[in-house]
């Protein structure tokens, strides 16, 4: 089975570049240059240098003893929460800003939901001295005020998206409109494995450092690079793509993607795209999409702003379609309980997104010697307010 993107940007039936002509030259410029640039020796040296010295990579692969006892398996946490800025998002923004510089761009735009990608973008813009505009839904700006201020401290301009439901989908629309209106001097740093080709492939490559490290770290810990399971939460799917990437061809490794079920998959307030979605086109790619019969995109819901997106990256739509990745979901309640449990068992307060990946462990029957990796995509600092409001601790 082939899980990589083809020359036109498709993963099986999904992917492609479904964009209005006004965006065609921007996307074409990326498509024609991204592989040449990111595979270049110079680029790789600078990228990995920054990942090491600035982001703090490799992030630890931590054997979670008490969590392992609880679930009767050998559980390791891949500590993306220890990345500079607090989540895996920065792996991608470092890569893309280096690419933008190579392309001679002077300005950066981005969309953000929870604010993690916005902060990671504002951070690398400060690092490179580039102008940064971040679009964020007005509702999300209110929900995630500390991240708004973090972006501003870092020198970014945060523009409220006031169309639609004023969340991540609308922020993405606004960023795309901005890009249409500023086609030559601006690079759009998309924050997940979504968007028109080559974004999904490019972002997956930048995030693939996660599974590359897991393989090396597991080899050191147990003598071979293969776990039995890898769990990751899926919003757009970038941390999951990164955690799965180097295991895709190793079919004996069980890959599990965890979607946000919100108040329950069938509650009408959910973001469980594979359970509820159908093939459709949004934000430049053909993928699974939550939508009405008439093709209008449905506003998703999750307690976690980072998972609150009506689609998934086309690579995940394909991996779901061919059965390579098992998709499950966790509700708000399950995720919050798992977040508290992880805090108590291991002294790690996870991002609520990442808590979704922990929450589904009880749905699996492990053998005692099964090696289970949980990609802990981010830390819970940004979610303190939500934990406090939840209150059950």
């Amino acid at each position, binding site marked *: 089975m082939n899980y990589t993107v083809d020359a*036109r940007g498709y993963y099986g039936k999904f992917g*492609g*570049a*479904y*964009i*209005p*002509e*006004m965006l*065609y*030259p921007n996307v074409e410029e990326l498509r024609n240059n991204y592989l040449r640039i990111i595979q270049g020796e110079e680029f790789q040296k600078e990228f990995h240098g920054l990942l090491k010295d600035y982001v703090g990579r490799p992030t630890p692969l931590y054997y979670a003893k008490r969590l392992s006892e609880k679930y009767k398996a050998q559980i390791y946490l891949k500590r993306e929460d220890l990345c500079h800025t607090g989540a895996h998002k920065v792996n991608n923004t470092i890569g893309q800003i280096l690419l933008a510089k190579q392309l001679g761009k002077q300005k950066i735009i981005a969309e953000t939901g929870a604010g993690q990608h916005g902060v990671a973008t504002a951070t690398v813009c400060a690092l490179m001295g580039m102008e940064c505009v971040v679009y964020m839904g007005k509702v999300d700006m209110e929900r995630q005020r500390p991240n708004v201020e973090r972006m501003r401290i870092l020198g970014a301009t945060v523009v409220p998206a006031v*169309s*639609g439901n004023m969340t991540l*989908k609308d922020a993405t*629309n606004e960023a*795309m*409109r901005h890009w*249409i*209106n*500023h*086609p*030559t001097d601006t690079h759009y740093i998309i924050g997940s494995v979504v968007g028109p080709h080559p974004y999904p492939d490019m972002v997956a490559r930048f995030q693939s450092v996660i599974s590359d490290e897991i393989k090396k770290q597991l080899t050191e810990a147990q003598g071979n690079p293969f776990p039995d399971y890898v769990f990751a939460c899926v919003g757009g799917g970038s941390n999951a793509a990164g955690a799965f990437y180097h295991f895709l061809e190793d079919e004996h490794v069980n890959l599990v993607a965890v979607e946000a079920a919100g108040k329950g998959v069938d509650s009408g307030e959910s973001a469980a795209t594979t359970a509820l979605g*159908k*093939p*459709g*086109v*949004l*934000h*430049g790619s053909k993928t699974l*999409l939550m*939508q009405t*019969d*008439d*093709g*209008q*995109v449905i506003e998703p819901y999750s307690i976690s702003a980072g998972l609150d997106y009506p689609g998934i990256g086309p690579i995940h739509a394909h991996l779901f379609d061919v059965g390579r990745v098992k998709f499950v979901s966790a509700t708000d309640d399950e995720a919050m309980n798992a977040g508290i449990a992880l805090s108590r068992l291991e002294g790690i307060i996870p991002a609520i997104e990442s808590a979704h990946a922990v929450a589904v462990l009880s749905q699996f029957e492990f053998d005692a010697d099964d090696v289970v990796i949980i990609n802990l995509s981010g830390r819970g600092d940004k979610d303190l307010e939500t934990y406090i409001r939840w209150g059950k601790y």
Partner: protein
Amino acid sequence: MKNRITDLFRSKKGEVLSVFYTAGFPSLNDTVPIALNLEKAGADIIEIGIPFSDPVADGPTIQQSNKTALDNGMNLRLLIEQVKEIRKQAKVPIILMGYLNPVMQYGVKEFVKDAALAGVDGLIIPDMPLYEYEEQYKDLFRAANLCNTFLISPTTSEDRIRRIDAVSDGFIYAVSASSTTGAKGDFTSEQVDYFRRLQGMQLNNPFLIGFGISDRSTFSKASTYGAGAIVGSAFINLLKESKDQKKDIEVFVKNLKGN
């Protein structure tokens, strides 16, 4: 086979006026009377927008009209019925324009068939990739006698314009600037250079200039380079305010045409 769009461009060589509005806006049942009033007032082509929840190529005016139309309950099946109503009384070429996803959910094949039967003459689907049209849909459109119009922008390369010209039927939609939709002021010299460049390319298809055409001055200037122009946001702004659509549409079209 005869098609109203190709017939129009054969008989009318300049100042072709195409007017765009969103189906189901300002009210659900305005789609039909607006088309009839436009034809009476002298519009040459009626372009009806299919509302979508996420219109990324559109500025605030058309975004808002999409939202209002969806809130009003507009959908593609209803639009097909409304076009049938329009076609009972009107001879004007009708184009449906919209994003791919609603069309994809309807089924592209079924949609092409139903639209043609209802009396639609052409489609514009700005986010349908050129290769997908060439490989999957071109024969279907031609068999149904529907024109397909692609957009080009100031940053579209000459090679690509020629490739688009080769698969287009009816006309090419020349977007006047690298921008989302929305009425703006006068053309810049870069825009005029781009129009001249297009004019000099001797394309097989005529081109209409759209985006930022809002009044007599921009319409007549655009028409000196292209076969005519497309007015969208300015018309939607008019509809938003209008208390007497029939009269306001008549005045609007007369003003644009300079009579």
